[in-house]
């Protein structure tokens, strides 16, 4: 049934393009931006978009395009690092919880997860900022910590489903240890599931980073960040709407792109598709 349309194809393409733009802007900003994103030029403040400043300038005369590009680096960096923490800690915990059928480890792992899950992220971020001073590291830890139970639960649920499959019984009859089965059989079969969730958590991370920066708990000046750009823009929204529109669009398109990428990847990675002739 090769002619049946594969859902998510066009979504995957759009997701790849948007995520590619985001990543491209972030990488490019390391070596080149049209202007120095931190350079102030009061004489050229609050200029609307033009050939010289494609996205206009802000109240200090900084180039908005340069700031959006540099902001991509902060957003993506925080989001990816936080997702990596969640995946790196949560997935092994989930695998462990599912592999121990005696229930004690399972209960312990999942109850700790519940406690973390129940703790408000923003409060933790404020706490971290109060103790260590606000900054990107605090944002990464706060967002990352809340990614852990997401991945742990998902991994455990997926792994429990796999443990009841015959191929796992066959591997056990072949004398494989629970650890070997978890690593060699279960984890690869959950890869699709986890990649999808990783993309979605990265999307949420971009949003969360913007939120934390907006309230001043994220990336600190002079590093530009979309959230703080929005905060700066709100008093000027009437006179200089581009200051709010472009970072807002950047956040929305990044979240959309990562989400579409996740969904599209799931459809491509799902082994059910491979079964089709």
């Amino acid at each position, binding site marked *: *049934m*090769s*002619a*049946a349309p594969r859902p998510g194809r066009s979504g995957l393409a759009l997701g790849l393009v948007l995520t590619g733009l985001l990543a491209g802007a972030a990488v490019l900003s390391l070596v080149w931006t049209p202007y120095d994103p931190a350079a102030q030029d009061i004489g050229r403040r609050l200029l609307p978009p033009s050939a010289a400043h494609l996205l206009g300038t802000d109240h200090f005369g900084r180039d908005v395009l340069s700031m959006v590009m540099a902001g991509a680096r902060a957003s993506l960096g925080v989001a990816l690092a936080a997702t990596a923490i969640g995946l790196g800690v949560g997935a092994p915990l989930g695998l462990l919880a599912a592999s121990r059928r005696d229930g004690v480890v399972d209960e312990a792992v999942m109850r700790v997860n519940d406690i973390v899950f129940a703790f408000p992220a923003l409060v933790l971020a404020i706490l971290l900022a109060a103790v260590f001073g606000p900054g990107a590291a605090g944002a990464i830890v706060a967002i990352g910590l809340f990614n852990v139970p997401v991945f742990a639960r998902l991994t455990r649920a997926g792994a429990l489903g796999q443990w009841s*499959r*015959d*191929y796992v*019984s*066959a*591997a*056990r*009859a*072949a*004398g*494989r240890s629970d650890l070997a089965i978890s690593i060699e*059989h279960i984890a*690869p*079969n959950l890869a699709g599931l986890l990649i999808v969730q990783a993309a979605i958590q990265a999307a949420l991370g971009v949003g969360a980073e913007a939120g934390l920066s907006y309230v001043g708990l994220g990336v600190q000046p002079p590093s530009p960040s979309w959230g703080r750009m929005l905060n700066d823009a709100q008093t000027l929204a009437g006179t200089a709407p581009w200051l709010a529109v472009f970072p807002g669009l950047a956040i929305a398109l990044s979240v959309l792109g990562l989400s579409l990428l996740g969904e599209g990847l799931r459809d491509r990675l799902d*082994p059910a598709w*491979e*079964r089709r002739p």
Partner: protein
Amino acid sequence: MTAPLLSIENLSLRLDGRDILRSVSLTLAPGRVLGLVGESGSGKSMTALAVLGLAPPGATATGRVLLDGEDLLQAGERRMRSVRGGDVGLVFQEPMTALDPLQTIGDQVAEAVRLHRGASRAEARRAAAAMLERVGLPAARFPLSRHPHELSGGQRQRVAIAAAMAAGPRLLIADEPTTALDVTTQARILDLLRQVTREDGVGLILISHDLAVVADLADDIAILKDGEVVEAGETLSLFRELRHPYSRALVEASALRPRPPPGTASRTVDAPPLLEAAGLIREHNGARRLWGPARPFRAVDGVDLTLHAGERVGLVGESGSGKSTLLRALLALDDIQGGAVRLDGRRFERRRAPADLRRKIQVVFQDPYGSFDPRWKVADLIAEPLRLSPDAPIGAARRRRVEAMLEQVGLKPADADRRPHAFSGGQRQRIAIARALIVEPQILALDEAVSALDVRVRAQILSLLDDLSERLGLAYLFVTHDLSVVRAATDRLLVMQNGKVVETGETAAVFAAPRHPYTRTLLAATPDLERALAARAAQVAL
């Protein structure tokens, strides 16, 4: 002959440039039963879906499907909605998924009445109660407020039949209605289908892979292969003549020959048994109670079992009898709560299963699709148990060993580089057998290993197993619900019911003279082609 109720003329179905159905022509008179038989992929279910206008999107149907003269292929979607469930009732294979788990059984049956007969709520409820009573679920014992999960599989299938019949259809299509049920339940559901359709003068299309079931119920039969009707006709004369070679092959493959009783010389009863279970108990955690600990459910309750080298033992029982649970305990996959398992004289349990013991017993599971990691290549799948061997070959030697195994089970060495999804169900079972045999076990356990296969493939796998046991001197432990397989493949059998072994003995002797009432019920309920045809002939003679 009365005017046909349903007349399918030259029905063809194309999907993605492939012919799913090729010029299928069938007729069904009111009150008669038409059996559609074929292997998986033969197009028997697709024929039913095409009749209902439910062919997959993108498929183009040509020909005519006349229901009382009305061409359903030309009918619009609006008309077809009233045909489905109204003029034509449907019963599916899986009674668990065919019913809405959140709706009461009364509502599900009443819904069909309200939708298609325009009855009021109260009328529909009365009609539903009457219909459920007719299918053997009287409201006194089975209130309309029951939900599907409170019923057994057979009872759920009764609800599905009641829902399909409630709107007063002219035609009922039953797609493998008893395949998911135990044999004793199957017999009762088949009786029920026969009775309700006869009483209401409804035409019945019975789709099944099981020749014996169809021969028992159907007046006329059509045998399908690759989307074509290869042979069709009145049941008795069709089976007597079997003009088409494919029909003959199908009948031959489904009639498994009983295994000759083993000669006394081959018995090795004096030797200590290879595998021995004594007083084996296996408990599951039962339903959790609100207060206090869960009450354990005893799935295997004090079972004794022995298996000698080279012996073939069958373990028979219906679903829930504990046979698969017992097998998992024997394979040291699960903890046991009492008794002991000894393999080659040594304790063999989940927490003490040394590699040298584990390699003596290997297993083939039922589901040819679920028993392989879909991401692994065949070569790696087959080689996985090799880690149990102390001198496991590596590199090129390992590859040669895998290829030799593949050839031994009738596959090609080149198949080692493919992934399991590239193979058919029968080929996958061959791969599973290769995987089990690569460590040269002395016992091969087969958990419903041929149950999911088409009859011709089943016959091939059984003859492969015969062949392997002679060459390798293997002992087999067949766990199955299918008595014909046990009869064809084992020397000795154990019958399980509710976690206990109720009868044991030599296979031929048990089949000739079953002692336990449950065994007798099982034997009587097992569909048998010869018996069905004899009964049909006797009916005609009257």
